[in-house]
């Protein structure tokens, strides 16, 4: 690439987006995008955890033995996720109930391991922190876009509020029906592919 020094925060938002470019974190993008609310919460939680674990790993990067680095990364991520989930349970119980399995799912999110391995192991803590924030936000943006379409076309609502008038529906004498396919994970994959398509056609120079 032409630029030598890239902005660690802005780069993953667009040109090096974790989902659209690195194709990481697809699994959770399929699972939590049926509705916008869990998608936003998931995006937020991942952002916080990636940023924190990036900093921790970056701080101890020179002491980590090469042969067990993945295990060390995993231990750090798992510990952080558990601590965050304990705090949520103690102080914002409602939110933790709402997140339920997602918090645990964060440990398995490929973006975390991907960023730790590819960035935090080689870079300084502050840059790693920005990289974590950027990647988390980049992930959240895609999740929000996908869940926007899935919730709107699949259940006719946005953030749980009905936006398509009840009278339009076939049941009430209209001619509109929710698209059941939108609720299925396969549709998320198709939508993610569309996002990647749009993203690549805007950034023609990437390939």
């Amino acid at each position, binding site marked *: 690439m032409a630029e030598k020094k890239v902005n660690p925060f802005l780069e993953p938002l667009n040109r090096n987006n974790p989902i659209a470019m690195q194709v990481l974190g697809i699994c959770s993008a399929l699972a939590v995008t*049926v509705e916008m*609310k869990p998608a936003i919460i998931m995006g937020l939680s991942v952002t916080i955890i990636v940023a924190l674990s990036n900093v921790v790993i970056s701080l101890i990067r020179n002491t*980590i033995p090469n042969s067990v680095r993945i295990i060390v990364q995993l231990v750090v991520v798992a*510990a952080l996720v*558990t601590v965050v989930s*304990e705090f949520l*349970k*103690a102080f914002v119980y409602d939110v933790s109930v709402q997140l339920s399995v997602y918090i645990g799912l964060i440990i398995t999110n490929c973006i975390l391991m991907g960023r730790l391995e590819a960035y935090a192991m080689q870079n300084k803590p502050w840059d790693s922190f920005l990289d974590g924030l950027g990647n988390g936000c980049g992930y959240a943006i895609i999740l929000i876009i996908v869940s926007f379409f899935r919730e709107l076309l*699949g259940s006719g609502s946005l953030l749980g509020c009905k936006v398509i008038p009840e009278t339009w529906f076939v049941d009430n004498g209209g001619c509109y029906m929710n698209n059941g396919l939108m609720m299925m994970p396969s549709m998320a994959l198709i939508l993610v592919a569309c996002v990647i398509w749009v993203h690549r056609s805007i950034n023609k120079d990437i390939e």
Partner: protein
Amino acid sequence: MNTSKNSYVIIYMIVIVVIVSLLLSITSGVLHSRQADNVRLDTKKQILMSLSTFGNDQENKIYTDDDAAASYEKFIVGYQMLDVEGNVVDTLRPVEDFDVKADEGKYPLYIAEVDGATKYIIPLKGAGLWGAIRAYLALDEDRNTIYGVYFGHDGETPGLGANIVLPRFRAQFVGKHILRDGVFASIAVEKKGNTAEGKDQVDAVSGGTITSKGVEAMFLSSLSNYAKWLTAPAIIKEGAADASLNAILSDMAVGDSAAVETTDVELNEGGNK
């Protein structure tokens, strides 16, 4: 520093693991009592949610988040353990004995007073698609008509199976009967358009077939433990003396709720024996 030596790796991992386990145990130790309080309050909320009414698809809760504990004290007047024969084996205090869990062969029952009428709340447990699902089912005094229901789940799919918690699904249960001709029949959860034989039914949530079937199975399996108790009230209803006693009870509810609690319990025990 040579970080690839075996001794270094082993010591490094031991140090990391010790630090992390210390961190986790301290966090969990410090926060545990707070979390337990939250869980207790949440359970009280869930019990109270079963007493919600649904007007216009909107849920009208009988509490606000701040005073759930106070509402619980106000509305829940009895906590009993039943055996499978429908007899009361333990009479507990709803607030002080809240943490008492049901032993094997005992089935908990909460008794609520809403606007002077007695409601019975039965906890239900079952399995959905991804994990456990649970419910609190509030019944009218006839132990047959559903007054309200609350559903909870551990991790059903958002937008699909998880929709069992929404008022529009729960409201369908109100007014349905779990007995048919005086015999326990449960409730069927059927795809729109299908008709269940011999029992009342509600519509399943779309896209959540397995969760819906889980709800149906949960009603059947959990409630069957209460079947004897559910079919008992015919005996209470027969005595006219009991009817007048009920009238006295509802009068007393205004004055002294503690007195109502004890008399109410005695009445039920008498009716079952």
